[in-house]
């Protein structure tokens, strides 16, 4: 929030972390105009941290020549924009926009295929830094998380706000990435705050002004209010959160069910969800969209194997195993077909996942039906220690498992490797 220098507010310099009176517009020490001032600055403890144009920023960091050029990260001719840098955004490029539209809007853009391996590695580095601040880090995705900083002041000798400023500067200098921070009394407001003056933003929403602030916002800022629900609310004459604030909670609950109850609380800026660090993944999956629709079962099978290897690789890395295998296909006319199968034992082996998924594939694909997308995932995740017990009947399975583990070991050794399973000429996951 913009600081209002009326009463003696507390202020903090975002560049040198100097504290000073809030009636100044520049830092008395370093002269920076990037100051943070808010009456509740030292009492708010819930933060939402979000990286700015994460994939694109990582790519720019990796290749400084791209610094002043519009960069779009996204896949293939038929893919969508995964991330667009702020220069590309000036031309109107947005996340999730089809690539051809994005290139219409910004023909000079440099398009980069996503390097998920790299992003997740950087994401992990950022997460590690977050975890130095508090154990209560709740990741929402690879590049954003909620932090509960309550009770950390004594430990760090700094208030949450000071700590966050130090964190932002550290990520900027050490990792070369910019992040935006929202600091608020709860998760709902923190998430809204972090989005307020991106990029390199730091916004504070306090208890005092939360209601007044929300009143002006459209209902769509509420998590869970999508296009359809927003349209429904609009039909009922509700466009802003302010209008929601005037409604009786019982009426809202009656009209919109459980969602109505949530709305009644959230519109007042109240959110009692805790920041919880143990939101483990529920499934591990991968999918790919073809450049042209595919009907050939052998070719589908090949793509499936490549995806399976990735899924298996990630499963092993996370020291997990899954008991269900799901195959996902999208037909040329955008119908999604999913088929799942429970396994007898949890697995993390590409061989086992592939055999199951390929069997499912052969039940669906008939060589005629054309597909634009194929995906595979494992679910019902558990620990790795009980996975893949030896099989009485299938001696080959144990051999294949050993071969796979040996290849995994080699891949680990040579990092970017050309270790390829025999007869399945697929690029290794990290090689592009």
């Amino acid at each position, binding site marked *: 929030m913009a600081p209002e220098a009326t009463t003696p507010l507390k202020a903090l310099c975002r560049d040198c972390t100097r504290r000073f009176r809030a009636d100044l517009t520049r830092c008395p020490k370093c002269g920076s105009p990037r100051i943070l001032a808010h009456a509740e600055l030292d009492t708010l403890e819930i933060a939402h941290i979000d990286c700015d144009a994460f994939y694109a920023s990582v790519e720019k960091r990796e290749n400084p020549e791209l610094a002043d050029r519009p960069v779009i990260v996204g896949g293939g001719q038929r893919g969508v924009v995964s991330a667009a840098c702020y220069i590309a955004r000036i031309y109107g490029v947005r996340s999730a926009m089809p690539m051809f539209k994005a290139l219409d809007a910004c023909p000079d853009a440099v398009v980069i295929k996503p390097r998920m391996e790299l992003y997740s590695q950087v994401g992990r580095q950022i997460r590690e830094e977050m975890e130095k601040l508090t154990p209560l880090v709740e990741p929402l995705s690879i590049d954003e998380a909620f932090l509960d900083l309550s009770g950390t002041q004594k430990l760090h000798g700094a208030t949450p706000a000071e700590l966050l400023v130090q964190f932002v500067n550290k990520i900027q200098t050490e990792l070369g990435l910019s992040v935006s921070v929202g600091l608020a009394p709860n998760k709902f407001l923190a998430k809204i705050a972090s989005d307020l003056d991106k990029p390199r933003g730091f916004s504070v929403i306090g208890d005092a002004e939360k209601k007044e602030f929300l009143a002006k916002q459209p209902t769509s800022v509420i998590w869970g209010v999508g296009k359809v629900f927003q349209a429904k609310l609009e039909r009922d004459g509700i466009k802003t959160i302010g209008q929601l604030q005037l409604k009786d909670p019982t009426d809202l609950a009656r009209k919109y069910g459980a969602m109505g109850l949530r709305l009644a609380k959230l519109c007042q800026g109240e959110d009692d969800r805790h920041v919880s660090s143990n939101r483990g993944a529920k499934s591990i999956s991968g999918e790919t969209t073809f450049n042209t629709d595919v009907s050939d079962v052998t070719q589908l099978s090949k793509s499936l194997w490549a995806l399976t290897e990735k899924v298996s690789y990630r499963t092993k890395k996370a020291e997990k195993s899954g008991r269900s295998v799901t195959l996902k296909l999208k037909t040329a006319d955008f119908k999604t077909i999913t088929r799942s199968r429970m396994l*007898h034992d949890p697995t993390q082996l590409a061989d086992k996942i592939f055999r199951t998924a390929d069997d499912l594939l052969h039940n669906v694909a008939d060589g005629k039906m054309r597909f634009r997308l194929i995906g595979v995932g494992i679910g019902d995740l558990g620990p790795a220690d009980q996975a893949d017990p030896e099989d*009485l009947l299938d001696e080959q399975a144990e051999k294949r498992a050993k071969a796979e583990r040996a290849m995994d070991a080699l891949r680990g050794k040579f990092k970017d490797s050309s270790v390829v399973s025999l007869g399945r000429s697929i690029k290794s996951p990290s090689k592009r």
Partner: protein
Amino acid sequence: MKVTLERTELLKSLTHVHRVVERRNTIPILSNVMLQAEGGNLKLKATDLDLEVVESIAAMVETPGGTTVPAHMIYEIVRKLPDGSQVVLETSGDDSTMEIRAGRSRFALQILPVTDFPDLTAGEFTHSFTMTAGGIRKLINSTQFAISTEETRYYLNGIYMHSLDIGEGLRFRAVATDGHRLAQAELEAPEGSEGMPGIIVPRKTVGEIQKLLDDPEVEIKVEISETKIRFTIGDIILTSKLIDGTFPDYERVIPKGNDKELRVDRDAFKEAVDRVSTIASDRGRAVKMSLSEGKIVLTVTNPDSGSATEEVAVEYDNEEFEIGFNSKYLLDIAAQLEADSALFTLADSGSPTLVRDEGSDEALYVLMPMRV
């Protein structure tokens, strides 16, 4: 069609046949049971296209004829009719409904034409023999638990039955396995079973036959071809397709060279395993079995809940070692054992273990150890 019959008789027969009918069907007629009145009998037939059950019961036939009605519905209706009542089944003049009348109750069910009802053409059977209900039940009960549910290895989704000469006469053997445990049970081969093809009887069929076996002394006629099996149990004929696949060479799996023998009181062992596995999650955690002279120690550790330990006295005088088994599999096998004493034959902590009743070769169980 118009028939009158005893509610009890009709209910008994419907109980037998309606189970075959799947609750959800894409083809409407598969939800129906076929009724055919002829001579002094009412014939009931139900199928899921893989399995067919036909039963004939005595009835007073006024007008011969046939129809099909929703199987689960007629079963529920007849079940709720008062005991001892006479039931009249009569199709309407325009063949659109069938009436069920009993006492003051009256139902009209929509029907589908009998000509549309599928027939599981059995073809020629190549082998025919009789077995007692008790014998078949023994084979099924000893092996059923080990049938695999894994669809990818569909050829394990049933019980493999074949006859073989093991030197001391021809045996009839049933085997089921899911890759983690294997169960084998055998009887003296009935006359007529020699040279029969090895067949895989699907799980659902196994379950249905099991429910039709009442009196253990009853002789049951079994007919077999390459693709089908038929059981004739009194007035009931059950015909089923077989699983079209090759059962793995299971004998390779049965350990021959295990040299460490362990004898344990079956009940003491079963109860101890049952107690310690309370700690295990439902996923079937490992029970660690530590063998030493004269005793085994069973341990289950579950990081989410705690641990359990129990000592059981055994006859064992070989080297000390530890081996882990899935607690559920161990319980399944313990439940099958019949003799007072169970005999474990082990090799080492990584190799399959053989379990059987002390002093009997009629059934044996192989168990793959788990890492502990």
